């Protein structure tokens, strides 16, 4: 049988099949990291989601910490803010918006400040002067003090109380006292009672590195000066100041001004390196269907209690988009949103030397396309992972180990187990039945019954083709192998007279649909047209229908299966995530070979949708559900009344394919195939069978080891276990078999294991 060559260890870039632009466009589609609409609307960028979460938990200390990041004087801002966040709150679309401003006020009243005293702080070297008073001057003083500038404030007011009072008349007495205490605790040098005029400013500013002025002072003393509002800077005067109106605008202006001071203090252009300032646009998707608390909790400013504030904060639905993580076991396993994941996987493909930590995650995606359907923006992780796999293969960096078993299985399907014959009595046929490799491996009797039925009831001849459609090679990112399979199948189809393909598997149908000029339909469509054959049976209990990921976007197939199930008399349960939204069973994309744990989680996710038995129309889904202990039936099993029984192990799956081919050749085409009979008896303990299935060791591998043993006599005896051990290198792995024997021709296999490394004796 064919082998597949292991990859090299010296990486040479041949073809790069994934571009940075493609990756960026995929990353761009994911809105997971977009801010919630309230934060996006806030020019100060309050992390309102985290803030409300802390407040809802009654943790006002943490809530205030978050609020203090944007507000040096929390009560001034909270009580005077125009609250654009509330106008953007999504709850407002279906009920009443969360009163974020009122919760902020409550947090400022109930929380404890975390400000450090000046003793613990290292002050900056450059000093700043602020001339004037009012909201802008107050907020700017707070911002600059936070940045640890040695700061002096020159104002006309006679004391700190009056300084704070200007433009903050909306504060109640308690709030005013609290903010005054905060102001007095700040490391600010006040010079009260100044007569501020142009000469005064010129004289005093000489002692400072940067000078700032309140809007009132600037307008009064320098009415001709031109300001750049985005920078809050008068370039001609080298004075940090600008227009602002209202509390929020003053706070935002102070933020911009503080950044301008930073740039000026470093002798840098204040225009550059400012990042994104002000409100932003968010494309975040929010599922509003789970919102419950749509009515406001009455809140009465200073009279509001902790409980009321926490309850109101608790109404926040924490807008976030996790549609893909909710539905896909793979993304949930890695806890990564596609925006981040796509970038990491792209980076993994670009590593020339060193570890490729994303190999396993990249190979664990089922490539099923569910994320694209559930994502509001059509993120396509399958595309990202498949491109990455193709890229790794084309640059010779893809390890063979995760996919080798599946690829060898595909070669087995299209070599030893392959069969292509026209219906007896025909040279060429109108149709060819292509049941798919898994159907022949898991339910050979069903395949036989279906083929005989089609031969019986369709005119023009129905050929049979047992083989693999090439999807496995495609999933592994091995485009060359996929292409070779396509050419091979096309040649075989042409020998049959280019018949219409009747696929037994939706994945095969999808894969074969890519062949140029090929007409293809599903057996389900044929059976709908010609009617059920009789002899079928329904499931006694209501059953959940699991849609195949191969039929995603193929509404005709999905509908046909439901119709067939109804005609059988089955009562169907529609689950969440059915139709196009159906998850993969864990077989797709070779996930089960690369990452058993994730594939298992995928199966569990499928089965968690319903406690009922499952009806599938892909044999791999049927097999994985049955292995999990759930009653599951392929629709063809029900239609033809053929029970596939317990799920076969990996060796039985190969044996079934060979036996089906042999049986059909003998019964339909009167061709005898040679029996490869062993000239010795080989048995397995139950433990050995389980172990081999788990470790992907075939009975064929064990037979090869025993053949070699009988030829060379090379084996060892282990005194401790009283068993013999033999080995053989087959392809890219060495297989070991531990066995007992009776005489020269009877062996009982107890254990088997393998490794990919070669081992040689070394001299010295």
């Amino acid at each position, binding site marked *: 049988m064919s082998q597949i060559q292991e990859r090299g260890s010296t990486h040479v870039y041949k073809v790069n099949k994934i571009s940075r632009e493609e990756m960026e466009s995929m990353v761009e589609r994911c809105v997971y990291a977009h801010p919630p609409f309230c934060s996006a609307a806030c020019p100060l960028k309050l992390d309102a989601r985290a803030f409300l979460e802390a407040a809802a938990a009654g943790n006002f200390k943490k809530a205030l910490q978050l609020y203090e990041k944007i507000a040096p004087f929390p009560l001034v801002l909270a009580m005077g803010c125009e609250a654009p966040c509330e106008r953007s709150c999504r709850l407002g679309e279906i009920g009443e918006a969360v009163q974020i401003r009122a919760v902020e006020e409550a947090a400022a009243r109930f929380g404890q400040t975390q400000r450090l005293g000046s003793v613990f702080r290292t002050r900056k070297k450059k000093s700043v002067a602020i001339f004037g008073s009012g909201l802008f001057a107050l907020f700017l003083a707070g911002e600059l003090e936070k940045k640890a500038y040695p700061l002096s404030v020159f104002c006309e007011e006679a004391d700190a109380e009056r300084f704070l009072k200007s433009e903050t008349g909306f504060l109640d007495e308690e709030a005013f006292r609290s903010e005054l205490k905060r102001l007095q605790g700040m490391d600010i040098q006040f010079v009260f009672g100044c007569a501020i005029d142009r000469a005064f400013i010129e004289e005093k500013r000489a002692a400072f590195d940067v000078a700032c002025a309140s809007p009132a002072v600037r307008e009064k003393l320098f009415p001709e000066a031109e300001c750049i509002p985005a920078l809050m800077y008068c370039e001609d005067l080298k004075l940090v100041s600008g227009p602002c109106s209202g509390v929020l605008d003053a706070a935002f202006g102070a933020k911009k001004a503080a950044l301008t001071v930073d740039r000026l203090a470093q002798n840098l252009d204040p225009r550059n390196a400012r990042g994104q300032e002000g409100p932003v646009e968010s494309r975040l998707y929010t599922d509003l269907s789970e919102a419950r608390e749509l009515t406001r909790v009455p809140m009465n400013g200073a009279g509001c209690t902790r409980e009321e504030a926490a309850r109101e904060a608790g109404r926040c639905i924490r807008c976030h988009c996790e549609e893909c993580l909710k539905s896909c076991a793979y993304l949930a396993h890695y806890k990564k949103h596609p925006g981040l994941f796509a970038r990491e996987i792209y980076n993994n493909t670009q590593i020339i030397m060193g570890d490729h930590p994303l190999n396993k995650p990249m190979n664990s995606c089922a490539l099923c396309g569910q994320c694209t359907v559930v994502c509001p923006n059509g993120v396509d992780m399958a595309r990202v992972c498949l491109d990455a796999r193709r890229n790794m293969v084309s640059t010779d960096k893809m390890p063979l180990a995760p996919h080798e078993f599946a690829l060898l299985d595909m070669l087995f399907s299209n070599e030893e187990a392959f069969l292509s014959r026209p219906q007896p009595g025909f040279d060429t046929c109108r149709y060819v039945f292509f049941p798919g490799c898994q159907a022949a491996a898991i339910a050979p009797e069903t395949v036989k019954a279906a083929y005989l039925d089609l031969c019986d009831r369709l005119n023009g001849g129905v050929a049979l083709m047992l083989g693999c459609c090439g999807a496995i090679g495609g999933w592994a990112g091995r485009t060359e192998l996929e292409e070779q399979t396509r050419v091979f199948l096309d040649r075989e189809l042409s020998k049959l007279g280019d018949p219409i393909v009747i696929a037994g598997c939706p994945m095969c149908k999808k894969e074969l649909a890519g062949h140029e000029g090929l007409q293809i339909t599903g057996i389900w469509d044929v059976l709908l047209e010609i009617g059920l054959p009789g002899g079928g049976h329904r499931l006694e209990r209501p059953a959940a229908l699991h849609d195949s990921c191969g039929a995603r976007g193929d509404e005709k197939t999905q509908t046909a299966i439901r119709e067939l199930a109804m005609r059988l008399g089955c009562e169907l349960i529609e689950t969440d995530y059915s139709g196009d939204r159906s998850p993969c069973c864990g077989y797709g994309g070779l996930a089960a070979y690369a990452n058993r744990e994730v594939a298992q989680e995928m199966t569990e996710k499928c089965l968690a949708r319903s406690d009922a038995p499952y009806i599938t129309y892909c044999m791999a889904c049927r097999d994985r559900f049955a292995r999990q202990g759930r009653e599951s039936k392929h629709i063809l099993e029900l239609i033809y009344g053929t029970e596939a029984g317990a799920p076969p192990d990996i060796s039985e799956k190969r044996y079934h394919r060979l036996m089906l081919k042999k049986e059909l050749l003998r019964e339909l085409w009167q061709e005898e195939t040679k029996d490869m009979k062993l000239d010795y008896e080989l048995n397995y303990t139950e433990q050995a069978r389980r172990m081999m299935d788990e470790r992907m060791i075939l009975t064929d591998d064990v037979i090869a080891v025993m053949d070699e043993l009988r030829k060379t006599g090379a084996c060892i005896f282990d005194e401790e276990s009283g068993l013999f051990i033999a080995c053989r290198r087959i392809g890219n792995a060495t297989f070991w078999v531990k066995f007992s024997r009776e005489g020269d021709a009877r062996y009982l296999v107890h254990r088997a294991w393998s490794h990919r490394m070669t*081992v040689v004796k070394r001299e010295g």
Partner: protein
Amino acid sequence: MAEKNYYTIDPEGKLTCMRCGVPLIKGKARFLYLDNGFPVELPVCPVCGFVYVPEELALGKVAAVERALEDK
């Protein structure tokens, strides 16, 4: 200078080569994978050079090193 051994197993006379009829001894061997080599000491037949890789080693350390090299 003698090569460092990454792993050592001494069969302590409990394993016998059936082809040569002699006990396996602790001998020098080398694992090779993807152009990397690791000197080890494993049970080796002193006559025919048969090298034994026990199950625990194959599924443990060898498998772990294989994974690491595959992702290089």
